[in-house]
C-alpha cells in the first residue's frame, strides 16, 4: 500500500503532461486547401451560343490525402480535375445554353481536401473547403419584330418576338435610343408588345432592358421606318392568260407587289416600284399562293404539295419541303405567316370536305400536319402584327353555316369562334393591323373578339381596312368605286353608312377582286382577273 500514492502520482503526472501537450495548440495549415479564384462568370449571348469551360487551380496542404470536387446548381454540367502533385487544375464546364435556355443561373463548386481522421486512416475528415461561386447568364433572345416596317411620323404598336423575356425582368424597350411605351410581356415570355414613338425614317435597333440582366441584351432586330409614299393612281397589267388572282401582298420594305395568279404555269409575279415607276413584272412559276416571312427575308411559296422558300427580290427558289400525308385530291391552298415566322397553310378539295392544315416551321424546315380541326377549304387572313388570323371556310354546295376559326400565333392553335358561323363567299376577309376589326364575307364587321358591330352593303366585292382599324375601304362596283366606312363605331349590327360618294378606280380590276393596303394607309391595291389597280386611298 505504501506504493499507492506513487502510482497515483504517476498517473497524475501523465495526465498533466498530456493536457500540457494538448494545450499548446496546433494548426500549421498543412490541411488547408487554397484556390485561385472564388468566382467564375459565364456569359452566353443566347441559348445557341457556345460557352467555353473555365479553369481554376487548387493547391493542397501536405496532409491532404483525398480531394473531392463537388458542385451544385444547374449552371454546371461538370467539374473535373487534373491532379499534379499537390495542385489540381479544376475545369468547370457550364451546362449547354440551349439545354437550360435563357436566364440567370447560379451554382457552386466546392473543393475539399480530406485528411485521415484516425491513425490507421479508416475514416476521412475534412480539411478546409474552398468554394467557387458560379454566375451564369444566358441572355434572352430577340427574334423579330412585327410588323418590321413602320411609317415615319406615326406612333404605333409592334410585337417583339423572342423567348426568355420572363426569365429576366424585361420592363423596357427602346427603338434606337428612343424609349418605347406601353410595354407588356406575355406569360410565356415569348412576346412583348410595345408602342414606338413617332420616328423619323431610318433603321432602329430594338433593345430590351432588364434590371437583372448584366449588360446589354444582344439584339440584331431592327425596325425599319419609312416615309409614306404616295403612289399615283394607275393600273398594272397582268401576265397574259390571267383570269384569277390567288393571292396579293404588298412588300413594304422593297415597295413591291407580290401576286400569285392562274396565268399559265401558275406564276408568282413581282411588281417592283423603282425610281418612281412600276417596273415590268418578274415571275417564277409553279405557285398557288405566297406570303412574305415575318421579317421579309423570304417569300414562302406554296405549290400543290410543297412549300418553297423564294428570294423576295430575285425570286430564286430554295429547296422545296413536301407536305406529308396530303389527302387524296387535296392541295395546298392559302398561306399566312405569324409573328413566330411559322406559316399556317390551309388545304383545298375540289368539293366540300374537310382536310388538315399544315404548319411550316422554318427552324426545322418541316411541314407539320394539323389534324384538329380539319377545315373545309379554309381561307386565312392575318393581321399586320401577325398575332392572329381569321379563317373562313365552306363551299358553295353547303346548305348550313360552318364555324369561323381563329388561328393564334402564340399557341399555333386553331380554335372555332362561338360566333360567327357562316359559309365563306368570294370576298376574302379583311383585318386591321392589330386585329381589332374583322370583316367577313365583305358584309359583316366584327370586333377582334368577334362581336358583330355592323354591316356593309351586299354589293361589296372586296374590302381592305385602314391599319388603325377606323376605316373600311370597300370596292363596290355597283356604287362605282371605293366606298369608305367609319367602322370605329359600333352600329349594333346595323348597316354602316358610307362617308361620302364612291371614289372611282383608275381602271376596272375585273372579277375575283382582292385588295390590300400599304402600311401607311395611303394606297390601295385592287387586283382582279383583268388587271391591278393602284389607287390612292380616299381622304375620308
Amino acid at each position, binding site marked *: 500500500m505504501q*506504493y499507492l500514492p506513487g*502510482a497515483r502520482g504517476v498517473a497524475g503526472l501523465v495526465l498533466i503532461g498530456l493536457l500540457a*501537450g494538448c494545450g499548446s495548440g496546433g494548426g500549421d495549415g498543412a490541411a488547408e486547401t487554397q484556390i485561385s479564384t472564388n468566382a467564375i462568370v459565364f456569359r452566353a449571348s443566347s441559348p445557341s451560343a457556345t460557352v467555353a469551360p473555365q479553369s481554376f487551380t487548387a493547391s493542397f496542404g501536405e496532409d491532404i*490525402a483525398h*480531394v473531392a470536387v463537388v458542385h451544385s446548381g444547374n449552371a454546371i454540367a461538370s467539374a473535373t480535375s487534373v491532379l499534379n502533385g499537390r495542385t489540381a487544375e479544376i475545369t468547370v464546364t457550364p451546362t449547354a445554353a440551349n439545354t437550360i435556355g435563357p436566364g440567370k443561373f447560379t*451554382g457552386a463548386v466546392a473543393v*475539399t481536401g480530406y485528411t485521415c481522421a484516425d491513425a490507421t486512416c479508416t475514416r476521412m475528415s475534412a480539411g478546409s473547403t474552398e468554394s467557387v461561386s458560379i454566375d451564369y447568364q444566358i441572355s434572352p433572345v430577340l427574334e423579330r419584330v412585327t410588323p418590321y416596317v413602320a411609317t415615319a411620323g406615326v406612333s404605333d404598336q409592334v410585337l417583339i418576338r423572342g423567348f426568355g423575356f420572363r426569365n429576366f425582368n424585361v420592363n423596357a424597350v427602346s427603338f434606337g435610343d428612343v424609349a418605347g411605351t406601353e410595354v407588356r410581356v406575355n406569360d410565356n415570355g415569348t412576346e412583348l408588345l410595345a408602342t414606338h414613338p413617332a420616328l423619323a425614317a431610318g433603321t432602329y435597333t430594338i433593345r430590351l432592358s432588364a434590371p437583372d440582366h448584366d449588360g446589354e441584351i444582344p439584339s440584331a432586330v431592327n425596325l425599319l421606318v419609312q416615309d409614306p409614299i404616295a403612289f399615283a393612281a394607275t393600273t398594272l397589267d397582268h401576265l397574259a392568260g390571267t383570269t384569277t388572282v390567288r393571292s396579293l401582298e404588298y412588300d413594304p420594305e422593297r415597295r413591291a407587289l407580290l401576286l400569285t395568279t392562274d396565268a399559265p404555269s401558275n406564276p408568282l409575279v413581282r411588281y417592283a416600284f423603282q425610281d418612281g415607276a412600276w417596273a415590268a413584272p418578274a415571275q417564277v412559276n409553279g405557285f398557288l399562293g405566297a406570303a412574305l416571312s415575318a421579317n421579309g427575308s423570304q417569300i414562302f411559296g406554296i405549290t400543290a404539295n410543297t412549300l418553297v422558300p423564294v428570294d423576295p427580290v430575285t425570286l430564286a427558289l430554295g429547296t422545296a419541303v413536301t407536305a406529308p400525308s396530303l389527302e387524296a385530291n387535296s392541295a395546298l391552298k392559302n398561306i399566312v405567316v405569324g409573328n413566330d415566322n411559322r406559316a399556317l397553310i390551309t388545304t383545298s378539295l375540289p368539293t366540300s370536305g374537310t382536310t388538315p392544315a399544315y404548319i411550316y416551321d422554318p427552324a426545322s424546315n418541316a411541314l407539320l400536319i394539323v389534324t384538329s380541326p380539319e377545315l373545309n377549304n379554309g381561307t386565312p387572313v392575318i393581321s399586320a402584327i401577325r398575332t392572329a388570323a381569321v379563317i373562313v371556310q365552306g363551299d358553295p354546295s353547303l346548305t348550313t353555316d360552318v364555324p369561323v376559326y381563329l388561328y393564334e400565333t402564340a399557341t399555333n392553335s386553331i380554335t372555332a369562334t362561338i360566333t360567327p358561323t357562316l359559309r365563306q363567299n368570294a370576298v376574302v376577309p379583311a383585318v386591321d393591323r392589330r386585329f381589332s376589326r374583322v370583316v367577313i364575307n365583305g358584309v359583316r364587321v366584327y370586333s377582334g373578339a368577334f362581336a358583330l358591330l355592323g354591316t356593309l352593303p351586299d354589293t361589296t366585292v372586296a374590302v381592305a381596312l385602314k391599319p388603325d382599324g377606323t376605316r373600311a375601304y370597300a370596292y363596290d362596283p355597283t356604287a362605282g368605286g371605293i366606298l369608305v366606312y367609319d367602322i370605329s363605331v359600333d352600329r349594333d349590327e346595323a348597316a354602316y353608312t358610307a362617308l361620302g360618294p364612291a371614289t372611282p378606280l383608275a381602271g376596272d380590276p375585273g372579277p375575283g377582286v382582292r385588295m390590300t393596303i400599304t402600311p401607311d394607309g395611303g394606297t390601295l391595291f385592287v387586283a382582279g382577273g383583268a388587271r391591278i389597280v393602284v389607287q390612292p386611298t380616299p381622304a375620308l
Partner: protein
Amino acid sequence: MTSQYIYIGALAALQLAGNVAVAAEQNLGRDTERRAVESTNLSLGLSASDSDTKESTSNGTFGLTGVATLPIGSLFGASLSGNYSRTTARTSDVLLDVTSQGTSRPSCRFNNYDAAATIFARRPTLGRISASYGQGELKSDCGDDSVFVSTGTDTLGTDFYRFAAEAYLWDFTVGAVHTSTELEDGPKIESNVFSASWYPIDSVRVMLSGGEMYEQDTYGIEIEHQPEFMGNSLGVALGYSVVDREQEIGTISFSVVYHFGTKVELKTRDRQYR
C-alpha cells in the same frame, strides 16, 4: 510538438518503471493464477460518429466492428479484428444555397474495410504490451471528381503497424500507442497517443487521451459503461475528440458493443479479456 511528447513519455516511463516494478513484485503471486486472456471471446459492435470541421464539411460515420481475442499460453494473447465503416460527407454544408434551382447536391461517401491482427503479452495486474499489423482499403465516391492524392484514383490501400503499452494501476490505466500507417503510393503517417483511464466503479471507465498526428494535437475524452443490468454483456461508449488546428475538427462518437462469452465487469474485461 513531437519532442514535447517524447519528453512527457520518457518522464512517464521512468516513473512508471520504478513504481510499477515494485507493484508487480507485490502482485506476482496472484499473477501466476491469471492468464493474459482468460478465455476466448468475441465482441461485435456498432459505432456512429459525427465529425465537424470548422468552416468546412461535416461527416457522419457508421461502422461495424468485430474482434475475436484468444489466449496463447498464459502470458500471451492474440486478437483478430475486422471493421467496416461508411462516412458520408455533408456536401450541402459547403455548397451555396441553390435549392431554388431544383438541383440535387452530389453525395460524397467513403467506404472503408480494414482488418488487423494483434499479438500481445499481458500480466493482468501489471499491464499489456502489444504489436499489431493491419491492412485496409478506402474507396471514395464524391460527386464528379474524387481522387486520393497519392494514387490518383478513388481507392487507397493502407498498411499499418501499431505498438502499444499500458499499465494497470489499481483503478487507473495509463497507456501509449504508436501507429505507423503507410498510405498506398503515399507518405507514412506517424501517430502517438497517450491515454489515462480511470474506473470510478468497475463498470465505468473514463478515459482522457492526447496525442499527435500530422504534427497536430489531438485530445479527447471517452466514457464507457457496461451496465450490470444488461448482464455485463453490453457496453456503450460516448466520446468527444478534437484535432486542434486551424480548421479545428470536433468529433463526437457513440458506440455499442456486445460481448459474447464470459460475463465480467468492464474493468475485468479490459484487463483480462480484451
